[in-house]
């Protein structure tokens, strides 16, 4: 499932680079360059997927309309996906709780899941770590793990449902996210809460889900400090959303009204991703 790109090829082709023949690229330039290359490469890759799908069994012919144009089909499908976001937001009941389970039903071992292998999970040093808070908040503070651990804690044993179809029951503990948002003076009338992660993953959620009673900023898994494989230093756990909406290795949280998208969402996964 790894979705990184062959770096050399992409970087070499990216137009509009700022290097101007300079042989030495600063770290920042390199990062920007890779980002651009990735953005350039992603759409054709995705388009290929759609084309491959569309040739299937003459389905395009069957429909008789212009789905033979893959761009048009993709555009239409993305519009329906945005419609599905709205339907899910409407269907979402802030008072409805996801089922909880006894400890005996916890899936052991709980599966590792990411767009990279377990060995590639980021190593974050907890000692010097500070969580960044930004955007529409009263206190754009930084938070150490000790400070977060000093906030009220809760635990839950809930079912993690992956977009792929499998599910697993796990036990997470941490700060109710609504409590945290309150502490940082978040504008809870804002539309989105966004997350940036140490593994370059990023995602965003709707405010009603952020404020849901079972949405936890987790610091532990199964009674232990959240291990690296499950998202150290912290993971946002939402049993009301699919797995890819639950970011791990969070390093920054921001509140915004500008749609922040997400790693998988920008490639076509549904944004709301509720269950």
């Amino acid at each position, binding site marked *: 499932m790894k979705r990184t790109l062959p770096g050399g090829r992409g970087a070499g082709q990216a137009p509009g680079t700022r290097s101007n023949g300079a042989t030495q690229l600063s770290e920042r330039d390199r990062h920007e360059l890779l980002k651009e290359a990735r953005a350039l490469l992603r759409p054709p890759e995705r388009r290929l997927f759609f084309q491959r799908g569309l040739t299937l069994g003459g389905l395009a012919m069957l429909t008789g309309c212009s789905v033979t144009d893959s761009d048009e089909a993709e555009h239409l499908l993305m519009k329906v996906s945005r419609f599905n976001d709205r339907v899910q937001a409407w*269907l979402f009941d802030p008072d409805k709780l996801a*089922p909880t389970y006894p400890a005996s039903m916890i899936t052991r071992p709980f599966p590792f899941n990411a767009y990279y292998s377990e060995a590639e999970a980021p190593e974050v040093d907890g000692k010097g770590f500070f969580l960044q808070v930004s955007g529409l908040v009263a206190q754009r503070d930084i938070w150490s793990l000790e400070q977060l651990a000093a906030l009220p804690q809760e635990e839950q044993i809930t079912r993690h449902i992956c977009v792929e179809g499998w599910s697993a029951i796990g036990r997470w503990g941490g700060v109710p996210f609504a409590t945290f948002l309150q502490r940082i003076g978040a504008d809870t009338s804002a539309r989105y809460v966004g997350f940036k992660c140490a593994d370059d993953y990023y995602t965003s959620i709707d405010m009603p889900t952020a404020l849901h009673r079972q949405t936890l900023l987790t610091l532990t898994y199964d009674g232990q400090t959240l291990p690296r494989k499950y998202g150290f230093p912290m993971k946002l756990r939402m049993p009301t959303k699919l797995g890819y909406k639950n970011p791990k290795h969070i390093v920054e949280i921001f509140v915004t009204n500008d749609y922040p998208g997400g790693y998988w969402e920008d490639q076509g996964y*549904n944004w709301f991703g509720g269950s």
Partner: protein
Amino acid sequence: MSLSQPPGMIEASQAGAPAQTVQPGWVRITHWINVLAFFLLIFSGWRIYNASPIFDFKFPKQITLGGWLGGALLWHFAAMWVLAANGLVYLTANLAGGRLRRRFFPLTPRLLIQDLSAALRGKLGHEDLRNYNAVQKIAYLGAIALLLLIVLSGLAVWKSVQLPLLRELMGGFDNARIVHFLAMAGLLLFTIVHVTMVALVPQTLRLMIRGR
């Protein structure tokens, strides 16, 4: 709603063709929309299944739709609206107009056994295509029931937290996936038999296109 003979639809009877409209326009339109939505859902559904197979097999990539999980999900969650809306139109018209009762009932076990044994001996006549025989009735009603089941189990998979009643009815999230898969398999089996029968009695295809 005696829509089986809307004004203007009645033409001079042609040789060999029943004079009256057997399949009204809304039946034909909803039938073909259903065919389209069904195949979009099946082929994209196989791709989604492949991401985390329930059983010990995967579907060959070449016969799936969407190219990757994300693309398949986009197709699946778009086509589901077509299937559901179309199904609602079909059921509403069928129930409100009394067509369901007229065309599918009476359906007794005795009639079913009689027609089924005749069908298996190759002796079930198709001279009068205006009326369904008992085997057709049970097969079409079964297909409708499976379509309802596939929609309900699909909802339970999609919204297992927001729709707790459906989730429990399906035996939990994991089980809802299995029900959804089996309903698909049942509908596929129906489709294979259905298309085979149409090939054997090709006039029925004309009925579903022209109506008579």
